[in-house]
C-alpha cells in the first residue's frame, strides 16, 4: 500500500477560477521513499505539497482524490494528521512559536495534550538525536538561521510523523548550513524510514539521494522518474530546469558519450577518468582570461572605484575586532565578488564602504575621495547604493510601483517614465502592481534591485544576491548585472554562491578572519583552491588544470575528444 496516492488532482484558487494551479496530478509515493519535487518558481510545487496536509490546504476548488495510507485524506482526522504528517516551511523565523528552544520542541506535544512524562522523554530524545543539547536552554532569538530551521525540523519530528514534507527548507540558509540541514533530512530518511517529500532549488545536495524526482511545469507533472533518467528527459526536451541539475549531470549531457550519467562529484570524476581512459589528454587548460573581460592585476589598479585601506573595525569598545586591516581595490566597471565563511566580516566590509559602520583605523575612498567627505546624503545620491541581504526589508509600500515611486522626485509623468525604464531593465514590468510580499524570491530580488537602481548608483553593493533564487532567475540576474556593468556601474558582491562567482565575477576575494586573504580572477582563484571551489573544478582537477565552470569542462572535453 502506497503512503500517498494522488489521483487526478486538479486545483484552482478562488481568485483565478479558469487558471488551474494544479492539473491532473497523478502521483504515488511509497513508504520510506525520498521524493524530490522540482520546477521553476510558480509551477505549483507549494500548492501541491500543501494539499497533502488538510490543515494547510489552501481554499479553492479541488477535484480528484488524495489517499493517505489507503484512506481518503479527508477521513483522516486533523489530530492524526498533525501527528503523522510533518510539514516544514521556507522561513525559519516565522515558524517558531515560543521563546525558548526547549519549549518549541514541546509545542506540538502540548497541543496534542500529552502528559509531562511523555513530553519529557520525547523532548530529550529529539534534543539528543539532533544535537540540540548545547543550545537547549537558549532563547530562540539567539540562534542562527541554520539552527532555527533545525529546531523547526526537530520540533516536528518530536511528533513522530511517518511522512515529512519540506517546502524549500534551505532557501534562507547559507550553503554550509543548508548542506547540514539536508544531510539531517537524509539521515532521518535512512535511519527512521520516514518518507520525505521535498522541494528545493539546490539540487546538488539532494538529487543523488532521491529515489524519485518529480518535475512540475505550469501545474502539471511533466516527469516522474529516477534521478538518472530525469537529466536525460530535461536535456531532450530543452527544458529550462536543466540548468538546475547538479554540475556532473549538466557536464555529462554537454559531452557526447555513451556512459552512465554521474550524479555526484565522485561519480563525475570517475566518469571523466573513464571517458579519457587510454586517450591522451593534450588540452589541459582553458585560456586564463576569457574574452570580454579585461583584468589588470588587482594590486596595480589605477584609479579604483572603491579603495579600502587598512580598515579596522569593531562594534563596541570591548568587543573583538571584526575587520582586521582590510585592504582592497575595486577596479571601475568590474564585478568584484567577496567569498568566505559566515561571520568573517564580509557584510561588515560592505557597511564600512557605505559609511554605515565607521572604522576606527584606516580609510575608505570612493572614487579617490574619503567616504566621510561625502556630506548630507550625497554619498547615496548617484554614488553608492546597497542591496541588503533580505530584499524584503526594502519594501515598505502596498505595490511595487509605489515602492519605486518613493525613490523619485519630479512630475507624475517623469516618474512614470523612470519607473517604466527601470522596470524594463530589471524585467519586472508585469509585477509593478502586485504586492511586494506576493512575489517569489527571485522576483523580490529584482524588484529590490530596481528600487536600489533608482538612486543611479555608480557603485552597487550586493549582500548575498543569489540566496534563495532558482537557477533560471540567477541567469536572468547575471544578465542584468552584465548590462549594468556596460553602463559604467561597479558591482561589489558578497556571496556564498561559488558557482555564480566563478561564472560571472571579474575578481574573487577570499575573506577570512577579518581580512582579505587573496584576490584573483575567478579562474586562477578557484583552480588554486581545493576545497573552496566549484563542483566542476573538484570533479575535473585530476584531468584538467584550470577548468572552473561547467562550460570550461565541457569545452575541454570536446576539444580533446575531437582530436583523438
Amino acid at each position: 500500500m502506497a503512503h500517498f496516492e494522488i489521483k487526478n488532482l486538479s486545483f484552482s484558487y478562488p481568485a483565478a477560477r479558469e487558471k488551474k494551479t494544479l492539473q491532473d496530478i497523478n502521483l504515488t509515493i511509497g513508504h520510506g521513499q525520498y521524493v524530490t519535487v522540482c520546477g521553476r518558481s510558480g509551477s505549483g510545487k507549494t500548492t501541491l505539497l500543501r494539499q497533502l496536509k488538510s490543515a494547510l490546504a489552501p481554499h479553492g476548488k479541488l477535484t480528484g482524490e488524495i489517499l493517505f495510507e489507503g484512506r481518503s485524506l479527508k477521513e483522516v482526522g486533523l489530530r492524526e494528521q498533525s501527528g503523522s504528517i510533518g510539514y516544514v516551511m521556507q522561513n525559519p523565523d516565522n515558524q517558531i512559536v515560543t521563546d525558548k528552544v526547549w519549549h518549541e520542541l514541546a509545542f506540538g506535544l502540548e497541543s496534542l495534550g500529552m502528559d509531562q512524562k511523555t513530553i519529557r522523554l520525547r523532548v530529550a530524545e529529539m534534543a539528543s538525536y539532533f544535537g540540540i543539547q548545547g543550545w537547549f536552554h537558549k532563547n530562540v532569538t539567539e540562534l542562527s538561521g541554520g539552527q532555527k530551521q533545525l529546531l523547526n525540523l526537530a520540533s516536528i519530528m518530536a511528533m513522530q510523523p511517518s511522512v515529512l514534507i519540506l517546502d524549500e527548507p534551505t532557501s534562507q540558509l547559507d550553503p554550509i548550513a543548508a548542506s547540514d540541514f539536508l544531510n539531517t533530512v537524509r539521515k532521518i530518511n535512512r535511519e527512521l524510514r520516514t518518507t520525505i517529500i521535498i522541494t528545493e532549488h539546490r539540487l546538488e545536495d539532494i538529487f543523488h539521494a532521491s529515489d524519485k524526482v518529480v518535475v512540475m511545469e505550469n501545474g502539471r507533472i511533466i516527469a516522474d522518474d529516477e534521478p538518472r533518467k530525469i537529466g536525460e528527459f530535461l536535456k531532450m526536451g530543452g527544458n529550462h530546469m536543466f540548468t538546475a541539475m547538479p554540475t556532473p549531470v549538466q557536464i555529462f549531457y554537454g559531452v557526447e558519450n555513451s556512459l552512465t550519467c554521474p550524479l555526484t562529484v565522485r561519480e563525475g570524476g570517475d566518469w571523466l577518468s573513464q571517458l579519457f581512459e587510454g586517450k591522451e589528454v593534450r588540452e589541459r587548460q582553458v585560456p586564463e582570461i576569457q574574452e570580454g573581460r579585461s583584468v589588470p592585476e588587482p594590486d596595480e589598479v589605477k584609479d579604483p572605484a572603491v579603495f579600502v585601506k587598512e580598515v579596522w573595525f569593531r562594534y563596541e569598545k570591548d568587543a573583538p575586532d571584526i575587520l582586521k586591516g582590510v585592504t582592497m581595490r575595486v577596479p571601475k566597471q568590474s564585478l568584484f565578488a567577496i567569498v568566505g565563511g559566515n561571520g568573517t566580516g564580509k557584510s561588515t566590509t560592505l557597511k564600512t564602504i557605505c559609511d554605515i559602520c565607521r572604522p576606527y583605523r584606516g580609510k575608505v575612498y570612493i572614487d579617490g575621495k574619503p567616504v566621510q567627505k561625502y556630506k548630507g546624503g550625497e554619498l547615496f545620491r548617484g554614488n553608492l547604493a546597497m542591496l541588503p541581504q533580505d530584499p524584503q526589508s526594502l519594501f515598505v509600500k502596498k505595490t511595487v510601483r509605489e515602492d519605486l515611486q518613493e525613490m523619485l522626485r519630479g512630475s507624475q509623468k517623469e516618474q512614470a517614465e523612470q519607473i517604466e525604464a527601470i522596470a524594463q531593465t530589471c524585467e519586472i514590468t508585469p509585477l509593478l502592481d502586485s504586492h511586494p510580499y506576493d512575489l517569489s524570491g527571485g522576483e523580490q530580488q529584482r524588484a529590490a534591485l530596481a528600487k536600489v537602481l533608482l538612486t543611479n548608483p555608480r557603485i552597487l553593493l550586493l549582500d548575498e544576491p543569489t540566496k534563495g533564487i532558482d537557477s533560471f532567475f540567477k541567469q536572468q540576474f547575471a544578465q542584468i548585472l552584465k548590462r549594468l556593468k556596460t553602463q559604467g556601474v561597479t558591482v561589489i558582491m558578497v556571496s556564498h554562491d561559488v558557482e555564480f562567482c566563478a561564472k560571472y565575477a571579474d575578481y574573487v576575494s577570499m575573506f577570512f578572519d577579518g581580512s582579505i586573504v587573496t584576490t584573483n580572477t575567478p579562474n586562477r582563484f578557484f583552480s588554486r583552491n581545493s576545497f573552496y571551489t566549484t563542483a566542476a573544478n573538484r570533479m575535473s582537477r585530476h584531468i584538467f588544470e584550470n577548468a572552473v565552470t561547467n562550460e570550461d569542462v565541457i569545452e575541454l572535453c570536446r576539444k580533446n575528444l575531437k582530436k583523438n
Partner: protein
Amino acid sequence: MTRETDAFSAYHPMINFTFFFGAFVCGMFFMHPVFLVCSVVFAALYYLSIRGRRGWRYLFGMVPLFVFLSIINPLFNTYGAHVLFTYFHGRPYTVEALGYGMTIAAMVVTIFLWFASYNAVMTSDKFMYLFGRFVPSVSLIFTMVLRLIPSYHKKTEQIRGARRGIGMAADTGTTQEKVRQGMTILSAMMSWALEGGIVMADSMKSRGYGCSKKRTNYALYRFAARDKVMLGVMAALLAVIAWCGMRGGAAAAYTPVFFMAGNFHTVIGVTAYALFLAIPAVINFTEDIIWHILRSKI
C-alpha cells in the same frame, strides 16, 4: 548570568517565589529596628552574591536614597519628644521623626534590593510556570509575546539598515522628514508582522494547535526532594516569625516617644527571621565552599 552563579535560583520556582513573597511581606511589615537591620543586611548580601562585584554600584546608589528619605520625614512629621532644632519660626525637627524616617527609608531600600534580586531569579518563564497553568491560553500568548518582541525589534533594525543603504536614513533631515520616515517603517513593520503571523498560524495549526480539547503545559522544572525539605524549613521559620510577631515580639513605636520590644519573643523572632532571610545567601556560599573543597581535592 545568574544561572551559573546563583545556586538558589536552581531550586524549584515555587521555592523561589515563596522566599521572595515571605521576604517582601516581612520587609514591609516589621518596623522593629533589629528586624529592619536584618532585612537590609540580608537583602544586600543576597543581591551581592548574585551580582558579584558589579552589585556594589547599585548598592552605593541606595545610600543617597536612604539619606534623602530619612531626613525628609521630620519636615512633614513634627511629633516627638526630643527637638533637634527649630526652623521657620519654631517648627520643630525631632529625633523621633528622624528615626521614623530612617525606618521608612530602610523599608524602601529593602524592597528595592529584594526586587532587584527577584528580577534576576524569578524569570518570566518561572512566573508563568507557577501561575500560567490556571489559564493555559494566557500563558501561551505570554510566551509568544516574549518571542515576538525581540524579533520585531530585530526586523525594525533591519529595515532601518536597509533604508540607510539607499540613502533614506531615518535619523537625518528635518523633524517632519524623520516623522515620515518613522511612519513608513512602522507601516512596513505592520505588513511584515501580519505576513509573519499567517506563517506562524500555519505552523501552529500544522502542529495540532486547536486539535485537542485540553492543551498541556510542559515545563522543565521538577519538584525534587531538596525542594520539599526547603519548603518545610521555610514554612516552619515563617510560622515561628508570625507567632512571635503576634505575641508582640516585633512591636515598635517612634512618635511621640520611641519604644521597641525586647522580650523573649523578640529574640526568637529575630533569630527565625535572620535564618529565613539568610537561606539563599547561605545556599550560595555553601555551594561556593563545597566547590572549593572539591576542587582542592582534585
